């Protein structure tokens, strides 16, 4: 790590008396020296072969046991793993920081596929609350419905639900894309900061409440707008992007994207500190 040392070197700021030290220590070259393997180690990653496939029956396993076995199979080079009998268990498939083709033959409970970075996942069932929370990268497709807090705080990747989702979809999301083929509940996009949400069906009340940034696209009816969520102009670029995204998502390919409503942040709450007290009340 870098160190602070006092030197005789005089920069303009130092000559102005603002400080006397300079940063020293390991350089970028030192951090990424190819001769040091430790600089390339990323915990939980393996060299896997997508053509090497296996089944894993988790019926009699706890979630930690199942997740450990997935990790073990990846360490043996399996790049395609089919999970049998997930039966609504919680916390399955969490923390996978690897390229992996993962298929669930059934439904997941709470916190399924949380904190993942890289896998391609297909869930031939339903997922419970907080699916794919904190997703960094990868693609997750849910064939049926999803519970509340779908894609909470995701940073990247594509999260796709072909059915309907519960309340607070995309809450606190900071990037990535959430695509829903059916309806969504209340507070969709609550406090979202970046990223995009596409809901082809209807949404409940308080859509985009307190959103800082990001974009929401709604194909159906909107229950109500939340604080600081406002309609935006749907540009041709938006429509092109929506068509591409829906095609890649295997969902709503024939949907008339020109009828989609675009919602963005009014950025009154975001600039909250710049407002006068009376204006703050108006923004809320």
């Amino acid at each position: 790590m870098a160190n602070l040392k006092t030197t005789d070197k005089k920069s303009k700021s130092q000559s102005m008396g603002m400080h006397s030290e300079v940063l020293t220590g390991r350089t970028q070259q030192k951090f990424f020296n190819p001769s040091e393997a430790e600089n390339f180690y990323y915990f939980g990653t393996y060299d896997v072969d997508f053509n090497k496939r296996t089944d894993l029956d988790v019926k009699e396993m706890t979630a930690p046991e199942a997740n450990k076995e997935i990790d073990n199979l990846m360490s043996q080079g399996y790049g395609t793993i089919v999970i049998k009998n997930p039966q609504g268990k919680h916390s399955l498939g969490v923390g996978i920081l690897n390229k992996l083709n993962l298929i669930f033959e059934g439904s997941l409970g709470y916190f399924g596929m949380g904190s993942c970075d890289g896998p391609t996942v297909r869930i031939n069932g339903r997922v419970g609350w907080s699916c794919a929370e904190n997703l960094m990268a990868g693609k997750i497709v849910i064939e049926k419905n999803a519970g509340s807090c779908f894609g909470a705080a995701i940073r990247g990747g594509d999260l796709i639900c072909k059915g309907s989702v519960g309340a607070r979809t995309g809450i606190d999301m900071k990037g990535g894309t959430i695509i829903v083929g059916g309806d969504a509940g209340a507070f969709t996009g609550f406090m979202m900061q970046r990223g995009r949400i596409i809901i082809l069906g209807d949404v409940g009340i308080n859509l985009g409440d307190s959103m800082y940034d990001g974009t929401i696209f709604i194909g159906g009816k909107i229950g109500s707008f939340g604080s600081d969520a406002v309609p935006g102009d749907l540009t041709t670029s938006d429509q092109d992007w929506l068509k591409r995204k829906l095609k890649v998502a295997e969902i709503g390919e024939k949907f008339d994207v020109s009828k989609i409503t675009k919602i963005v942040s009014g950025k009154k709450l975001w600039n909250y500190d710049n407002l006068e007290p009376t204006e703050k009340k108006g923004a809320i």
Partner: protein
Amino acid sequence: MCGIAGLIYKDKSVNIGTQLQGMLQALKHRGEDSTGYALYGDTDGKNFIMRFKVGENVGEGSSSVMEETSVYDERIKIVKAHILGMGAKIIKEERILPYSLRYEVSYDEKDLREFSRKIESVPGVEILSMGKSLEVIKDLGNAKDVCDRYNLDKIVGTHAIGHARMATESGVDIKSAHPFWGYPFSDVSVVHNGQLTNYWNNRRLLENEGMRFMSECDSELIAVYLAKKLRDGATLEEGMKASLTGLDGVFTYFVATKDSLGMAKDTMAAKPLVLYESDNLIAMGSEEIAIRAILPQEIDTYDPYDGEVKVWQI
């Protein structure tokens, strides 16, 4: 955090005690301070089944005290005298535990208010349920503990609701455990997951109108609130819809009657519920694993939305 579960078969009777036990046991990580069952068993419909307690099973934070069995014996004598004094007849009596009893009672009066008031005028006595079909059983421990203690695996019927409790708003004891009976309406029971923030305001209003509270558990308010709506002539579904604005806080609750099962979810959708619906079975719970306990095969389930009320009839 608590867990709730419910099921209703539209076209047949099953071993609902065992099925609900499986569902609630799957939710035991959501709370196992106490577990309660409201079972709607097959009966001939002639007599009332009265489940009542003459003492408490006291856990952490409870304001109640444990008492000697001789105290319970005295109370039971007085209860029996009151029943006979009101012209009712005890057809069958079972003492399941020293403090927990089940009576089959022949009673012609339709209004159970006076009957219940008389019984509950005995200190330490509380009627847990009174109905032609409903039996409320609740005690400390997880679902299997309670099922084994009360032999619930033998009860056959069409529908049931239950609750696995993590005590937060009141102490660990039977009086604060769910389900709550919709006193004085026979065969009405309620379980709830969540917190009600206008409990005391509503309680004061309802008590001023003669409604009865037996605990300080906020969830009891839902049963009393719905009972008041029914007393005022509303249908169950109308009462449940009114509760979405009349009750403040976060909640998912189930209510059951002799021939129906209903669910309501608050307008914030802050509490979970997963629902499976087919032509002959509705099963629901706080988590999907509760439903999986009785339906291990692949099924389609969904989350009801904010402000949603549903009622199913047999």
